[in-house]
């Protein structure tokens, strides 16, 4: 008790506790604020990624995000945000993507185009500055693969 009291009185006098001024309060006074859900940022980023020529698909991430993906599906999240992870702060966002690139496309150029498109879309639509877009190219898509990986004959007959 006395210790606590002592602590309180020993607070340096120059420490001034100020109310934090939030961006929302600043921008909209008392009319109300607008919040944008992470899912929305992820959807915008995902769509901007798919628009880039050379991107074959975005792949869903590892186990952790498979679980969060499940949660998202349960809570009404949608497919277009799958495989896109976002960290959204007050002014900035970071985006993580795992993609499959079409064979023959230049990976650095595709990655560069993704970064530019994602940044400009997210910024235009949400006002957030995209600080980083991390791109993990996990596979290349070649046209032959579709033939071999999707055999026309039913493959179920392992035993009879």
């Amino acid at each position, binding site marked *: 008790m006395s210790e606590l009291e002592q602590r309180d009185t020993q607070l340096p006098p120059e420490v001034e506790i100020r109310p934090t001024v939030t961006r929302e309060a600043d921008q909209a006074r*008392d*009319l*109300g*604020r*607008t*919040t*944008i*859900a992470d*899912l*929305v940022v992820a*959807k*915008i980023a995902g*769509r901007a990624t798919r628009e880039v020529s050379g991107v074959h698909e975005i792949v869903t991430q590892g186990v952790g995000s498979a679980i969060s993906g499940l949660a998202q599906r*349960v*809570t*009404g*999240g*949608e497919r277009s945000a799958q495989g896109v992870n976002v960290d959204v702060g007050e002014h900035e966002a970071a985006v993580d993507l795992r993609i499959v690139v079409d064979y023959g496309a230049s990976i650095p150029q595709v990655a560069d185009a993704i970064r530019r498109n994602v940044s*400009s*879309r997210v910024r*235009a*639509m*949400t*006002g957030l500055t995209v600080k980083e877009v991390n791109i993990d190219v996990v596979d290349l898509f070649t046209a032959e693969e579709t033939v071999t990986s999707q055999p026309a004959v039913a493959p179920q007959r392992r035993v009879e």
Partner: protein
Amino acid sequence: MNAAPDAPDEAADPLRADIAIARAAVSATRAAPGVERLATSVLGGAATYGRGEVVRGVTVRHERGAVHLEVHVTMRIADAHDLRAAAEPVRASVRHAVEQLTARPVGRVDIAIDDVVFESEGA
């Protein structure tokens, strides 16, 4: 009875008043441009509870004598359009509708954009 001339209805039945406000906010939101739907989550999402009645996607709270609302929406938007700008007509529409209903100024109308649908996607 005459003791509260400013808000006799709310004093009499605050639950009913809140539900009426929430309903007005819902119709105003639906009517606003760019709104695809109210964003309603069945699992404990934002909602206003009345007597045997729930209005999902809107919360109503009273603070310092004013009514404040929070509206959860799914917006329909074209690529590269500003979502924050798109939320302004929703806010204005909700404010107007609730002010009409209560005949008092509304405090904050917060718009939570929970989801988006892009215009080039089908419904």
